[in-house]
């Protein structure tokens, strides 16, 4: 089929090509997806990560507990406060203290807003992966602005806040935050309804994503899927309910699951989760208790090892912390949700027939965030 070249065209028997959807590609992000295909049907997928590995686990061994929050936040640039929350949760468990109630509610608000900020971005990328000309991506990116402005009002930064610390949060809610938040919630609810009409119910989007990339329930559990990818296969696993933290125990909300297990279900789970997030923020704003927002904590954390987890936007983010009594951790192992989700696509060609054009919708419905996987 044409001329032999000295590039990395490895023509295997049967006329298969190995196509590198590599780091320089409109859809791949900072990773490589090596696809073995004959032009349409995909026989093998291999995902290669490590392009943005920063060695955060090693860095944390040289930072004091409070300083460690900064590299942790930069691990994932989208929903930064979830990562900080996991680390803080581990520290507080080792210390044996609990943050004051008002701090817990403020934490909940920050976490849920982060979830919305992250989901809109991920959904925009999912729409763009079905070749939708960046229209939906730009709408969703524009609609995050009210929440980013709220975060700036509260913490001073738009993306990485360093706001959740062991012992509570850094500052109290400023004047006018409550009204602005209510406005933003109302605006976003309308936009979500528009998204459901123009996009989720759009028949071409459904054609591209229904029945595509089906991960059955038992396989999802066996392969270790996380977050919305797991909930779209019907497994009701949500750390906010299984092991409540912040103020989730006192708030009333449901876990969103879907039965279909395909890419469409994974997108729909995220949209519905955003509705739930808006409800949670409203409840937290209405029922906020009074009181202090921070406790002082000692420098040294007692010996012990603990596994703390939170439900970040991509899934369950777990931190296994081993402390030996000093003011720095001995070992921190971060179990990132994207690390578990990205590799799900490698298993799919073995259980169903995938076409080359299906790779982007499947990949982006798993919400792969390479920064997360690389740490």
């Amino acid at each position, binding site marked *: 089929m044409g001329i032999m070249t000295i590039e990395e065209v490895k023509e295997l028997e049967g006329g298969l090509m190995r196509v590198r959807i590599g780091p320089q590609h409109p859809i791949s992000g900072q990773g490589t997806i090596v696809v073995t295909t004959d032009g349409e049907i995909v026989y093998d997928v291999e995902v*290669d*990560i*490590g392009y943005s*590995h920063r*060695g955060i*686990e*090693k860095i944390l061994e*040289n930072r004091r507990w409070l300083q460690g929050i900064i590299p942790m936040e930069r691990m994932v640039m989208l929903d930064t406060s979830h990562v900080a929350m996991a680390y803080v949760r581990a520290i507080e468990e080792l210390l044996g203290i609990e943050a004051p109630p008002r701090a817990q509610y403020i934490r909940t608000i920050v976490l849920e807003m982060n979830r919305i900020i992250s989901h809109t971005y991920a959904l925009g990328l999912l729409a763009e992966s079905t070749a939708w000309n960046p229209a939906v991506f730009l709408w969703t990116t524009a609609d995050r602005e009210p929440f980013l402005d709220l975060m700036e009002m509260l913490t001073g930064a738009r993306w990485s806040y360093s706001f959740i610390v062991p012992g509570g949060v850094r500052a109290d809610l400023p004047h006018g935050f409550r009204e602005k938040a209510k406005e933003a919630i109302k605006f976003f609810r309308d936009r979500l309804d528009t998204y459901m009409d123009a996009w989720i119910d759009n028949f071409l989007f459904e054609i591209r994503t229904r029945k595509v990339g089906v991960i059955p329930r038992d396989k999802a*559990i*066996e*392969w*270790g899927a996380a977050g919305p990818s797991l909930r779209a296969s019907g*497994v009701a*696993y949500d750390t906010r309910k*299984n*092991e409540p933290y912040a103020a989730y125990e006192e708030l009333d909300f449901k876990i969103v699951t879907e039965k279909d297990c395909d890419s469409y279900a994974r997108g729909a789970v995220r949209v519905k989760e955003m509705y739930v997030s808006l409800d949670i923020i409203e409840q937290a704003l209405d029922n906020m208790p009074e009181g202090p927002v921070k406790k002082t904590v000692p420098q040294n954390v007692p010996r012990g090892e*603990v*596994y703390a*987890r939170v439900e970040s936007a991509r899934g*369950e983010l*777990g931190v*296994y912390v*081993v402390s030996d009594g000093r003011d720095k951790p*001995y*070992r921190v*192992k971060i*179990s990132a949700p994207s*690390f*578990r989700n990205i*590799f799900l696509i490698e*298993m799919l060609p073995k259980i169903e027939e995938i076409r080359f054009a299906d790779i982007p919708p499947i990949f982006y419905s798993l919400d792969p965030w390479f920064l997360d996987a*690389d*740490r």
Partner: protein
Amino acid sequence: MVSLEEKLKSEFGDAILEFKIPKDNRIVVKVSPDRIVDVAYYLKNEGFDMPISAGAVDYMKNNVFEVFWIIWSSDKNIVLILKTDISRENPTIQSLVEVWRGVQKFERETWEMFGIDFKGHPKLKRLLLPEDWDYEKEGYPLRKDFSLKPYTVEK
């Protein structure tokens, strides 16, 4: 959960080195390395079916690597941390890939960062480090004797 402890102890005897319940839905089980696969299969039958994480901790003072796997049970909602100690000079351990497919990538990363050989793992290849990382010269990144000095900039 007392019944799980009794079941494990009666089945495997003194291969179970430690069994702790630090919190409501956490169990920590420390096993000796030669029975690790059997214990893993037993736990899978008991309902611990979803792998969450796997890694290692380097205890240089005691000259061991402590390898751990973290598993969740979907019907009991309990997180179980399965640990085992292996020697630092000759670090090999049986891989648990056959028991839970999802630990494949975690074990690969642990091999890469610590140098622990997982026997039976289908693909021990570089994941996060570049392909031409020279272990003789640079060492294994997450071991405690890996110095960050060559990578820091003097002010």
